[in-house]
């Protein structure tokens, strides 16, 4: 791994990594069963430099902003490197946004160059908002068919210049990227992340979850997402590891990728992790009784032997078939983006597959805390990463308060939003808006969002996410709990209640059996923690590109209904 303390910028570190690890494989791109591309760091450089030079030939200057709207693929990373090489500011945008939303962000970010894929450009070019983005000077599209109408764009593959580009140095304090934090709704929040932010975050993360040549990271989360950008690009590159991209994210090809490429790490959101868990559980349940008994015994042995720390070699021997399904070299599944049920985390850990859960947000430069597995704890989001100062503001009698963070990884501010920045970063501390507390072992436990909470008549603060664990595995499509007053604000602080919002499976009804199940689980909670009503929704919970539930959007949707009629008695 490069010594990042010596570098001033992301571009400078990547530049050296390409030379230091020249012969190592850096990228593998697969489409279904076909491997489309396999590049060494040397070949990666050979692809990126002509692009960088062509950009410079257009009069590109340090600090100019370039947006990337692409699915995870090799050209994403090649383009990003070329931008950093030229001293540009990368604006990674979510490819799952609507064209209108993408234009809004292209305009907001003042991007002068857009690099995108042809199918995405086809939709963007057809949008009436195209004419409003006068800031956009150059559009590069990848993989356009031979006779495609490019609508003023230039083919990425042909945008190259063969003379050597000049490397443009940047300072640590310079902005490296503008990342739009998802799930916020309303006006765009463009987090200005500096080179310092990335260099420090990478040092901290790789100290716990290291990469090395030969390690392979399966990149599934969108690379515009802060997690994948760090652990699916910058982190592995500065360590000489490989990144595997799948052009088709069908579950069967994702499953095949693990053994095929002997994956070392993968990042998933809880929804996908849970889906994986369901698939595995179904396989275990289908075992003949005798084999199941033996399997359960082996899991119990593994659980006992890994109580204090993971023992990958031992787990792989004990539960060989399970591990072979994952390629046999999986070190950890990194999970993020949303709260993960402890039961799911424990399920994988008991199989000898550690799940690196943590807590973070884009504004803090990806991760704030991470489970260090010493020992594994399913009930917390781990300890603060090295270099992170985390404090709990105004803790209540249980030690719960707003989490604030001070670190070299915290963004420099929101683009064009000085007031919002001043509200969010106070005296150098990032106010997360999330609530939590530290336990005696120094692990952070999340307790909910700042505003989505109730105070009971007994003076107890109750946080919906605390309660959700009691309903995990409820036989419904999806659920979440809200403070009713968060959905339907009231001035009164008396009689606050929690409501269980249910989205039933297709054809499922709120049967007496389901009601009994909910009541039984509810009654196991302390009386002041119980939910007091049900709210049914008939459409999918809104989710971000990384499949995180957009709670605020869901609450806004629910708020359209009348409170009295929407809440069904339990």
């Amino acid at each position, binding site marked *: 791994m490069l010594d990042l303390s010596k570098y001033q910028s992301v571009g400078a570190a990547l530049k050296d990594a390409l030379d230091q690890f020249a012969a190592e494989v850096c990228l593998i791109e697969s489409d279904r069963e076909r491997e489309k591309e396999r590049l060494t760091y040397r070949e990666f450089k050979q692809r990126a430099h002509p692009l960088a030079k062509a950009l410079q030939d257009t009069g590109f200057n340090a600090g100019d902003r370039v947006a990337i709207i692409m*699915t995870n693929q090799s050209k994403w990373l090649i383009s990003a490197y070329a931008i950093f090489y030229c001293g540009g500011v990368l604006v990674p945008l979510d*490819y799952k946004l609507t064209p209108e939303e993408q234009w809004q962000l292209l305009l907001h970010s003042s991007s002068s160059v857009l690099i995108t894929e042809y*199918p*995405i450009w086809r939709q963007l070019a057809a949008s009436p908002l195209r004419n409003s983005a006068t800031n956009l000077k150059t559009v590069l599209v990848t993989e356009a068919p031979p006779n495609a109408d490019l609508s003023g764009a230039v083919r990425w593959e042909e945008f190259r210049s063969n003379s050597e580009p000049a490397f443009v140095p940047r300072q640590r304090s310079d902005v490296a990227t503008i990342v739009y934090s998802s799930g916020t709704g309303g006006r765009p929040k463009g987090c200005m992340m500096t080179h310092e932010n990335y260099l420090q975050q990478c040092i901290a993360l790789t100290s716990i979850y290291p990469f090395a040549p030969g390690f392979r990271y399966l990149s599934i989360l969108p690379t515009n997402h802060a997690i994948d950008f760090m652990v699916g690009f910058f982190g592995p590159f500065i360590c000489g590891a490989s990144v595997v991209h799948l052009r088709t*994210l*069908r579950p069967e090809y994702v499953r095949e990728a693990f053994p095929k490429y002997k994956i070392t790490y993968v990042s998933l959101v809880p929804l996908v992790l849970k889906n994986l868990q369901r698939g595995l559980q179904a396989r275990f349940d289908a075992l003949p009784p005798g084999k199941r008994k033996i399997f359960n015994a082996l899991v119990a042995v593994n659980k006992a032997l890994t109580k204090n720390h993971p023992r990958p070699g031992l787990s792989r021997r004990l539960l060989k078939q399970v591990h072979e399904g994952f390629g046999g070299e999986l070190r950890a599944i990194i999970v993020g983006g949303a709260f993960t049920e402890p039961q799911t985390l424990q399920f994988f850990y008991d199989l000898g597959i550690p799940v690196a859960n943590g807590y973070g947000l884009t504004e803090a430069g990806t991760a704030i805390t991470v489970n260090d597995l010493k020992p594994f704890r399913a009930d917390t989001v781990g300890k603060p990463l090295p270099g992170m100062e985390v404090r709990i503001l105004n803790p209540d009698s249980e030690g719960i308060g707003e989490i604030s963070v001070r670190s070299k990884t915290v963004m420099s501010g929101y683009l064009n939003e000085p007031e919002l920045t001043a509200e969010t970063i106070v005296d150098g501390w990032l106010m997360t808006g999330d609530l939590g507390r530290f336990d005696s072992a120094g692990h952070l436990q999340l307790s909910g969002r700042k505003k989505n909470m109730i105070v009971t008549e007994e003076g107890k603060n109750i946080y919906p996410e605390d309660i959700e664990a009691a309903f995990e595995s409820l036989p419904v499509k999806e659920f979440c709990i809200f403070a009713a007053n968060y959905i339907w604000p009231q001035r009164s602080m008396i009689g606050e209640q929690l409501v269980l919002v249910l989205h039933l499976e297709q054809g499922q009804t709120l049967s007496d059996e389901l009601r009994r199940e909910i009541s039984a689980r509810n009654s196991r909670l302390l009386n002041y923690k119980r939910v007091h009503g049900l709210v049914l929704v008939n*459409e999918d919970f809104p989710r971000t590109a990384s*499949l995180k539930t957009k709670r605020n959007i869901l609450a806004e949707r629910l708020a359209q209904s009348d409170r009295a009629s929407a809440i069904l008695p339990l």
Partner: protein
Amino acid sequence: MRTIDQTTQEVLVLASKHFQVPAQSLAPDDDFFRKLGINSLQALELLSRLENHFGIELPDYEVQGVSDFRTLASRIQSRL
């Protein structure tokens, strides 16, 4: 060569079988996420089944943002 109407009907039948709902309950303009109550992962599973049935490959980008059966059928038709 199938007509677009035939392709659409086949898509509806396959979706109904895959998610075990009556075929007559599905219509071409239905939003399949809403009508079938499926999430994005389940939609991807349906795509794999459709690809096998029609003997085509449907790149992920072709179905990005598609949520109704009729549009899905037209994307399939263009690759037959």
